[in-house]
Every structure is written in structure tokens, then in C-alpha cells.
């Protein structure tokens, strides 16, 4: 055996177990689920049979699934831009201040590293109606009317969305701040000397240079909001995605179909639909943003 083959054998030996892991725990299950999405697989049934695209037809005709998709769209369409705009603003402000940057950043990152379950219950407690909810107590102190928050089909989704923005803010701010710090100061200084105003510097130099970071975050956050589950599970009454399904996300719908009703075939079909949406959105985002970056 040559030295090179011996080394290659070593490499294969090192990789054997991890590769087996990825095949058995990632690819295998994915393929398995694709196959099973075409069957009447249910844990409460003794047998399952091939139903073709029947599961897909059934869930796409299910008004609750369609509502969960539209809710998911709302989370993503309003949530991701909100968190990106807010964090960009904060990062720019942070860049402006000469001192205390680190301390502020730490505070902003805190929600991001705490368990979402804990955070969800804290907000649920704060969102209670009077006389228990501290947010409503604050509104009352300011002379504003009390809000229903999680009890209302109109306000519940925005409330959960706002909490997720609060969670993700620190992460995006940190990434933006790192991006801003990579902008060479000579470029900015040169523009200043040429008489550019602060606003012009921001619009013509800083923002374009931040485009790649913004693009990265848009994709990350888009996916994050499309996958929203834990917040909805913990903040809606009895984990149902209520009131009246108004907060139910696609991920929660899939969870309920699979692990409450044990309709695994239907749930597999639903999760493939969500997967396709996530993939499509990611690709579109890449295309559109790529074009914008290279105009």
C-alpha cells in the first residue's frame, strides 16, 4: 500500500461513522418521509396503503392548513423585514456612539440566547388582560385603552410576531455591527473630505456595502420566521394556535397532525409543502437580492 492510499484509508476510517450518521439521521429520514407522504400512514391504524397524491389533495383542501400557511406568510412577510430594519437602525446608532457599545450589544443579545419557551411564557404573562398584565397596566398608566393581545384573533398573531422580533433583534444587530466594522474607514473619510453629508455617506457608501450582510440576514430571518413553532406553541391557549386558529403556523399544524392526531402520512405531505415553500422563498430571495446587488 502506498503512503497516499494509506492516508486515504485513514481519512475514510475517520469519516465512516459521521457519514453513516448523516445518511441515517438526515438523508434516510428525508427520503423515508417523502415515500410515506404517499401513503395513508397513521400510527393508530394497523395497515397503511398507497394513496398517491391523495394526502396532498386532502391537506391543500383543508381550510385550517391553508389558514396556517397564510399565517406563516404573515409571520415571514412582516417579521423578517421588521427585525432587519430595526436591527440595522440600532447597529448604525451603536456605531455612532463612542463608548458602551459592548454593554448595549450584550443587552440586546440576551433574549436571543435565552430559551424561547421561557421567553414565551414571560411575554404571555406580561400580555395578560387587566388586572394581571403588566403591559396593559403600562398602557393604562399612559392613559391608553387596554388591549386584548393574545385573546384576540386580530392581535394575537402580531403579538407573537413582535416577541419573535424582540428575540431575533440582538442576533441581527450583532451581525450588522460586524458588517459595519469591516467597512474601511478611509472610504468614509474620503467621502467626507469630498464634502458628502452624513446622510449621503450612509446612502451611497454604508448601505450598499452592507448589502451582502443584509442579504444573508434576509435569508436567515425569512427561514426563521417561516419555521416559527415554539413561540406559537407556548403563547397560544393550550398550545392550539388559537384563538380560532389565528396564530397557527404551518409548523404547528404539522406537529398537531403528526403528534396529536397521529396522521403521519398527512403530516408528511404537509411538511413537504412547507419545505418546498421554504426552498422556493430562499431561491427567490437569492435571485432578487442578487440582482439588486449587482445592478
Amino acid at each position: 500500500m502506498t503512503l497516499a492510499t494509506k492516508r486515504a484509508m485513514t481519512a475514510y476510517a475517520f469519516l465512516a461513522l459521521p457519514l453513516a450518521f448523516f445518511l441515517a439521521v438526515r438523508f434516510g429520514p428525508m427520503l423515508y418521509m417523502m415515500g410515506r407522504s404517499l401513503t395513508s400512514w397513521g400510527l393508530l391504524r394497523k395497515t397503511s396503503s398507497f394513496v398517491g397524491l391523495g394526502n396532498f389533495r386532502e391537506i391543500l383542501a383543508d381550510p385550517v392548513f391553508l389558514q396556517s400557511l397564510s399565517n406563516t406568510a404573515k409571520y415571514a412577510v412582516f417579521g423578517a423585514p421588521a427585525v432587519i430594519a430595526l436591527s440595522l437602525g440600532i447597529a448604525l446608532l451603536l456605531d455612532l456612539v463612542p463608548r458602551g457599545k459592548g454593554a448595549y450589544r450584550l443587552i440586546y443579545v440576551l433574549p436571543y440566547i435565552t430559551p424561547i419557551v421561557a421567553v414565551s411564557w414571560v411575554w404571555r404573562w406580561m400580555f395578560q388582560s387587566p388586572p394581571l398584565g403588566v403591559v396593559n397596566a403600562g398602557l393604562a398608566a399612559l392613559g391608553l385603552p387596554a388591549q386584548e393581545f393574545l385573546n384576540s384573533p386580530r392581535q394575537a398573531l402580531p403579538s407573537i410576531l413582535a416577541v419573535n422580533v424582540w428575540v431575533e433583534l440582538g442576533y441581527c444587530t450583532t451581525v450588522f455591527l460586524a458588517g459595519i466594522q469591516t467597512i474601511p474607514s478611509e472610504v468614509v473619510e474620503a467621502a467626507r473630505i469630498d464634502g458628502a453629508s452624513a446622510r449621503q455617506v450612509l446612502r451611497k457608501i454604508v448601505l450598499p456595502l452592507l448589502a451582502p450582510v443584509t442579504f444573508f440576514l434576509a435569508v436567515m430571518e425569512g427561514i426563521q420566521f417561516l419555521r416559527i413553532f415554539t413561540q406559537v406553541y407556548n403563547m397560544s391557549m393550550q398550545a392550539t394556535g388559537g384563538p380560532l386558529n389565528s396564530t397557527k403556523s404551518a409548523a404547528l399544524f404539522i406537529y398537531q397532525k403528526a403528534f396529536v392526531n397521529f396522521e403521519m402520512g398527512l403530516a408528511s405531505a404537509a411538511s413537504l409543502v412547507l419545505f418546498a415553500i421554504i426552498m422556493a422563498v430562499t431561491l427567490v430571495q437569492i435571485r432578487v437580492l442578487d440582482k439588486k446587488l449587482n445592478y
Partner: protein
Amino acid sequence: MNRFRPIAAALIALLALSAFPAFAEKVSITYWQYFYQSKVDLMNQLIENFEKANPDIDVEQVTFPYESYQQKVAAAIPAGEGPDVVNLFYGWLPLWVKSGYIQALPQSDFSADYFKKGFYPFVAESVNFGGKNYSVPTAVRTLALIYNKRLFREAGLDPAKPPKTLEELAAYAKKLSKYDAKGNLVQAGLLMQPNGQGHVWIREVLFRQFGATPYSADGRKVTYADAKGAQAFKWYTDLVTKDKVGYPNFSTDDVTAFKAQVGAMNVDGSFRIATLNAVKDLEWGVAELPSYKGVKSNFASFWTHSIASGVEGKKLEASVKFLKYITSAEVQELWLQKVGELPATPSLSAKYKADPVISVFLNGLGPAHATSYVDEAGQRAILVDAVDEVNLKGGDPAAVLKAAAAKEQKLIDDFWK
């Protein structure tokens, strides 16, 4: 090395000696129930007693959160990972018997006569399928009106005179409700929580009191959505939307609100006695459910124990023994004291006729009905959503109820298909 050999041999012998008898003879069975603190604590104690009396049997208690309990059982039994003895809500029996999760109890130990003599008639009826008995309960539960005496006094009401009719109930509820300067409800006169006991109060009590019949005799036709049923439903939702004496999820839920003393009255079950007694500074009373035009009704239900299908031989023997013990007269009384549920054997209740709390729940058994559910969770959700439709989306109660009845009918039809 040689020096250690005798010691090792002795150790092994000792281990074998101590382990062998247990290994050879002990039967272990598992008991599943959902997690409710007072029940779990008591069951631990009962298992200890039982194991002392039956050193050859080992019982393990496994508990699951209430919300996921039925699903866990349903998934585990067909896979052979389930319990031997299992606790279930009577409303699930039809589904479980049909799905083959549980087996008929041995005739020798649990004959029809055994049930006739020792249990309430509605219990005997509910556990019998095709002439075979599938389940046996320790306790039964009914509903009553519970109320906060301190809040009664504050509102100028006599805590010794709780409301007797629905009209009085509504009037009391209005007097007991408090609002802040902005008109927000800060103290609920009557807690309205359909996903608690509210849905059964509507289903088996209000519908009947207003003259509707909720279901056909065999339980397969939903019949509550007539004019009278709509009236009953409207009476309930009006309390939320017009009188604003309470609303679903006020202060999280009815139990939390009552414990926090921001809810003055609630319709709740006897199993709450232990929970409420544990709250410091809470002075609470209990009264029979208010009547309407002289009609009384109540909702009786029970959690019951069955033996899972596939349990046989020594495990079956042990399971029967355990079942006999946890439904014995001795345990029924302990259950009443520790959990608050009423003995399933009528004769045991005699001595509590004078107890101010227990007697009220016992009286509820007289006019009580038990719903024949096919899917308790699904049927519950339909009425809960119906109340939300009226309360949150301004739906017309009669139309909403009609839609709910259609949904429930479909659920029942799908089950029997």
C-alpha cells in the same frame, strides 16, 4: 489474583441469592394516568400499600400531561409499549373499545351483578359494551357552583345565600363584576371558560334546562341546535358579550382567576376541592347548579381504570388484583378525602350527607347526565370554538350553534362509519 477469587465467588453467590427470588417470582405491571397532583400523590401511596400487601407484585406509575394523555396512550398500546392498567376518561371508552386498546374485564371478578350492586347505574351503563364490562372506576364527579365568600360580602351579597336559579345567577354575576375606569373587566362575576367545565355545562345542563335535548338516545344524532338550544347558547354568550361578567381566558383561565380571587363564581367539579383548599386566604363556598324554570340538571362523569389488551397470564392476574384494590371501599374513601371525587359506590356516600361541600356534589348526581362522546377532545373543541366565534368575531349565536352541531355530527358520523 488468587487471593481475591474466594471473595469474588462469595460476592457473586450473595448477589445471586439476593436477586434470585425477586427475579424469579416478581411480576411487574405499569399503571398510567394523566398528571394531576393530588391523584398522582395518592396513587403513589396506594401503590406502596398494595406492594406491601403483595410483595410479589411491582407496580410502576407513569404519568403524562393531561393535554397529550389520550394521544400517548393511543400511540403506545398498538405498539406494545403501553401500560397494563390504564386510567381513562369515561368519554373515551367507546373509541378505546372500538380501537381494541382495552380488554373486557374477567367475568369472574367483574360480573354484571358486581356492577349492579356496587355502582351508580350510569357507571354500569357506560362501561358495558355488548354485554361485557370494560372498565371500573374509583370515583365519580359532578358539577357545582363554587363561589368566593369574601367577594360576595364585598358586593353586599349574603354568602350563605348563593344563587338558586339562572336568573339569579346572572343578576349576581352582574353585581359581582368590577370594571376599571376604562371599562375593563377587573373582577369577573362569573367565570366563562368553555374549555374548562364550561362546555359540559352548556352541553348537558343549559341545553336541557332550556328545553333542548343535546343528543338522541343512542348518542349518534346531535340535536341541540334547535330554537331552544340556540336560546340556551345565547344565554351563555350574552353573559360574555352583553353583560360582560366574564370572558374565556380571563386571567389565564377560570381556575387561575378563582385562585387569584379575581373571579367570584365558577362552574367547576368536585375534583377541585383539594386545589382550592390549598390556596391561602381563599374563603369559598359551594352550591348546587342553579335551576331554570324548575329544571335541574348536572353533568356526571368519571375517570375509570381498564386493563390494556394483550395483558395476559401472571400480569393479568396482578392487574386484576391491583384493579380490585384501587376500586375498593377503603380506597374510594381515601380518594374522596385526598382528591375530592365522590365514591363510585353509592352506599359509601351515606355518611357524607351532612358534609357541607361533599353533599352538594352528591346531590348533583340525582339530575345528572353523562354524554356519550366518541371523541371527547374533538367535541369539546367544537363548542369552545363556537363560543369564540360569537365572542371574538361577533357571530350570531343561533347560526354559529347550527354550524357547530353540523361539525359535531360529522365527527360522530365519521366515527361510526
